[in-house]
């Protein structure tokens, strides 16, 4: 366990999606864990809730939200947090995550993960809100680096430094989305490996992988395809730098059969094993070299 809270390495999971409900309930597939989109289960007493309870009985579950809007200048939504906390307790969620972003302001919600200006003011504001949220939820949360399509001229921090500073000063975890690092590095022209180098190892509780859509001039984080080779290489690099943490494959558009999504998630195990054996070989070579 590399992270400071002892959150377990749950292995290789996928997002729980309604198109797979019947398959999961019928077949009990041998999958390590599921990530659940919190907002889809907060206000329903219908089938999604019924299925989630059964899934949570059988598998480890983590809650992942899209509406915490941690960077917004609107007041914290305690009604939302109350429901989130109750859901987390009900399904015995190992942890709760959301995104380092804002989704709306003045009471409106775009339901998009909007970029933060990386300024001192935004840093202080977000740290304060993360602390309030964690106090209410009575547990540390993990924040994910979002894919972004623009940068503010007012930013005085690099995104990776901003993410690390929030995590350190608010005492929260990081959900490192490797695909998002790649997407933003393409869109903004930074080095994705340097980004990962700046992420504090003991704060990372989970990684995300996903496919994206390359529009030529920019990349959109669409979760609509297989993970590309470059992102797998980056995942391998992240594993080398940050150690083994729970890894999740996201697939949210044009979702194929369960086995296809799960198969893509299991590729991560292969990349991790390759990286681990390469590290052992390198270590042995080093011992031999010293022995010489």
């Amino acid at each position, binding site marked *: 366990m590399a992270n400071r809270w002892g959150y377990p390495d749950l292995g290789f999971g996928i997002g729980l999606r309604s198109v797979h409900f019947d398959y999961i309930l019928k077949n009990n597939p041998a999958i390590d864990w599921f990530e659940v989109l919190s*907002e*889809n289960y*907060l*206000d*329903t*007493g*219908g*089938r999604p*809730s*019924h299925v989630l309870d059964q899934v949570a009985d059988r598998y480890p579950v983590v809650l992942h939200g899209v*509406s915490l809007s941690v*960077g*917004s*200048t609107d007041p914290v*939504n305690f009604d*939302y947090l109350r429901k989130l906390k109750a859901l987390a307790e009900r399904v015995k969620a190992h942890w709760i995550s959301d995104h380092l972003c*804002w989704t*709306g*302001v*003045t*009471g*409106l*919600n*775009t*339901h*998009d993960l*909007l970029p933060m*200006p990386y*300024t001192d*003011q*935004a840093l202080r*504001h977000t740290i304060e809100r993360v602390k309030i949220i964690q106090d209410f939820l009575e547990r540390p949360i993990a924040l994910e680096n979002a894919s972004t*399509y*623009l*940068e*503010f*001229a*007012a930013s005085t921090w690099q995104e990776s430094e901003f993410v690390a500073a929030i995590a350190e000063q608010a005492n929260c975890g990081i959900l490192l989305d490797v695909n998002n690092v790649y997407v933003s590095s393409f*869109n*903004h*022209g930074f080095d994705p490996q340097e980004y990962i180098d700046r992420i504090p190892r003991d704060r990372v509780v989970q990684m995300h992988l996903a496919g994206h859509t390359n529009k*030529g*001039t*920019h990349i*959109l984080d669409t979760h609509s395809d297989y993970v590309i080779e470059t992102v797998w290489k980056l995942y391998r690099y992240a594993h080398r730098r940050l150690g083994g943490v729970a890894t999740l494959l996201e697939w949210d558009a044009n979702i194929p059969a369960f086995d296809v999504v799960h198969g893509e998630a299991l590729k991560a195990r292969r990349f991790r094993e390759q990286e681990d054996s390469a590290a052992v070989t390198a270590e042995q070579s080093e011992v031999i070299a010293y022995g010489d």
Partner: protein
Amino acid sequence: MGTDPALDPDLTLVDLTLEKVQRWMLACILGPRTSEETVVSEAARGWVLPSKTLSAIERLEIYRDMYLPRMEEALAIDYPALKHFLGGQEFMRLVKRYVDVYPSRSYTLNRLGDHLPEFVATLTDLPKKEFCVDLARLELALSVIFDANETPPLTPDAVRAVPEEAWESARLRPIEAFHLLAFDYPVSKYMGAVDRENRSPRIAAKKTWVVAYRRNYQVHRMDLREPAYEMLSALASGRTLGEAIMSVLTRKWRPAVKQSQLFEWFRDWMAEGVFQAVELGDAKAVAAS
């Protein structure tokens, strides 16, 4: 938007607080104009950096371009038959006008469409508007029922436990996932045709009545005759079984409605699990499942 202090064209980077950035960007995404027009000054244009391949405006437009499709996707989940009737283009035009008036103010998109039937009723240029209103009302009811809390229906044992002489004064409480609807158009039939055959039947005005409910977490709907609708409405509003029966036996349907039919309806509703409890007499003893 011109009066919004966050959008003051003379703001410089030095003045740019987090709140102002967010209000400005929100206006760029949701506003009626393109980002090019919303970026109200050269100063504002300078707030976003260009990339090697895209200008600042083009980068803003990425967010703006994704907004309406996201709203359309959410509303199409709840209103598939309305989308089928209107066609993709007209439905998107409806979505655009709707979210201008009713943008999301919630952490969830699941209830984004709650005002769509009343909004459709205000429009003047929609084809077959009254039909669209009815169809939207039905689809909204189904989406509410989908998310309603689960309440176990009456079991046969619970029904058998009610003394025969107590039925007349008994009140039946419907399950939470239950909705009665009256329409001027046969929208349930239309939905069925779209669901089953992906075709659009001819649309002609005709009074119809429907009960929508959920059983075993599946949403169902049952067409009713008008007296059956009246009787079920009476029961759902808390009238006794005796009162509900008399309401249809003593009114305009007699002698068209025979007592035996009432029992058939009642048996069907019980079998479909639309009631969760029987409340008996003055003591309000509840015989639940």
